[in-house]
């Protein structure tokens, strides 16, 4: 069964065709990756799926429902969560509260409960804080729960973002270059963490990366984007043998 079906998706920024006629499907479970050189339109593609941009044409179907043109928060509440290429944490909330924001938008109490501090409000807040703490434990950051994210090093901030994206129990997790800016050991750690996440949560992961090495061990299926168009698809071995892909990465041979 497919969790995401994208049909003929295009987005133009004025004259720039950022994404052109991309069609792809993502199977439920496991890790699917989208790779491509810098500027290939990978992040733009993510931003369309998650609702930051509205596509010029085409449709996106998520879990059997047409989500084209829905607002970002509506898509998020349907069970899709994401991380960002340039980490976007809330600087004025501590790490625990950062993770908790993902659960807050799903907490069922209203303004009146909040103002009088009703038992219902306290119950939901306590539950959500505990659940956020569990997510932080999973990524190994529980002891930094009360620090501000700005005081943590880069690699840890990435993990906080991952914990925040996981907290809401998503069906689909979009990871935008999660290994960017990490060194080799940190990248290996991160890949190992993703394996653990996969075991613990029943979710599908869609990963963007421009380094083949990172996705190679993780994903069963890889899509390659170049200049906004779908260039190739297949397993890791197929992609590594694909001449078009090699050309896109290495440049064409002049002779």
């Amino acid at each position: 069964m497919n969790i995401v079906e994208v049909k003929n998706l295009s987005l133009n920024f004025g004259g720039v065709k950022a994404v052109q006629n991309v069609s792809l499907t993502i199977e439920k479970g496991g890790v699917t990756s989208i790779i491509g050189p810098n500027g290939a339109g990978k992040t733009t593609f993510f931003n369309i799926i998650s609702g930051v941009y509205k596509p010029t044409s085409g449709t996106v179907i998520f879990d059997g429902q047409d989500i084209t043109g829905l607002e970002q928060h509506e898509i998020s509440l349907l069970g899709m969560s994401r991380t960002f290429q340039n980490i976007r944490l809330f600087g004025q909330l501590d790490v625990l509260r950062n993770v908790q924001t993902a659960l807050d938008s799903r907490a069922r109490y209203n303004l009146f409960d909040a103002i009088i501090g009703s038992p219902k409000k306290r119950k939901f807040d306590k539950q959500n804080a505990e659940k956020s703490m569990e997510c932080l434990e999973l990524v190994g950051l529980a002891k930094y729960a009360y620090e501000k994210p700005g005081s943590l090093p880069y690699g840890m901030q990435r993990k906080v973002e991952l914990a925040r994206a996981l907290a809401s129990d998503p069906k689909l997790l979009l990871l935008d270059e999660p290994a960017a800016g990490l060194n080799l050991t940190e990248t290996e750690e991160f890949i190992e963490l993703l394996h653990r996440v996969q075991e613990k949560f029943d979710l599908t992961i869609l990963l963007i990366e421009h380094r083949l090495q990172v996705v190679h061990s993780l994903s069963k299926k890889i899509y390659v984007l170049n200049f906004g168009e779908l260039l190739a698809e297949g397993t890791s071995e197929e992609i590594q043998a694909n001449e078009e892909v090699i050309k896109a990465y290495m440049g064409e041979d002049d002779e």
Partner: protein
Amino acid sequence: MSYYITVLTSITVDLVAILSMYLLLGLTGIFSMGQASFMCIGAYVTGMIATRADVPMGVCLVLSILAGMICALFVGMPCIKLRRDYIALVTLGFGEAIVALLNNMNNITGGALGITGIPRKINLYWGLLILILTILFVVNFKNSKFGRQCIAVKNDEISAAAMGINVARVKLLVFVIAGGITAMSGCLLAYSTTYVEPLAFGVNRTINWISTVFVGGINSLSGSTVSGLIFGILPEALRFSSSGRIILQCLIVILVVNFLPQGLFGENEVGDIFKKIKRKLTKKPTVWEGEK
């Protein structure tokens, strides 16, 4: 009523308005340059009703709050989708328009003369009671999911929306609540000073509140309250020299912005101290000593 009590009452009334400014600016990052006009709305609703009919104070209070909230809803709806600097422009225009309107509608509002002869029904105790209730309201709001959502929206709207937060709704909610609280302070003002005139609610007043919130701290309710007290008492303490007090106030703002860009309290609240002590006692302190 003695002089000191009058001064304290007016500080209490202003503090209520500053709390609404804290909700907008400190918590949610909405730059409302026309907030004083909501105080104006509250004061005029109270003034116009109280001078024409003998209604209980509670009725006027509720009507003022409702009027403020309805106006905030109409101003807020087109505003919330705008970027921060454009919100400032739109609200500034709205604020000045309200003042101009009231100043020129001679037959209904009394024009530039304002409304006089409002019965004095608010004394210091009433003012303090309402101030404390408002503080409790804001504290509980801040410590709930709504407060966290506001801070998330202030820090990063795209990221907040990706967490499932309806950014436009959160901003509108805060705008309407703040409009209601500011209008309530207007009602208190009308009942405590017994007269209202439109020109007292221009952009100067809003800017005073904005600088008070900034001096207090970028996101601190306690800070806003304390700096509201300081800026309330200071002009009275320096009554002997009218130009001196303005210079001193400006000097404080400049010094704080320069040397304490986070404001007096930063993001800390008085209540946090107890939490931190409790955490230190129960667990070992965790200080990250890594890359700087």
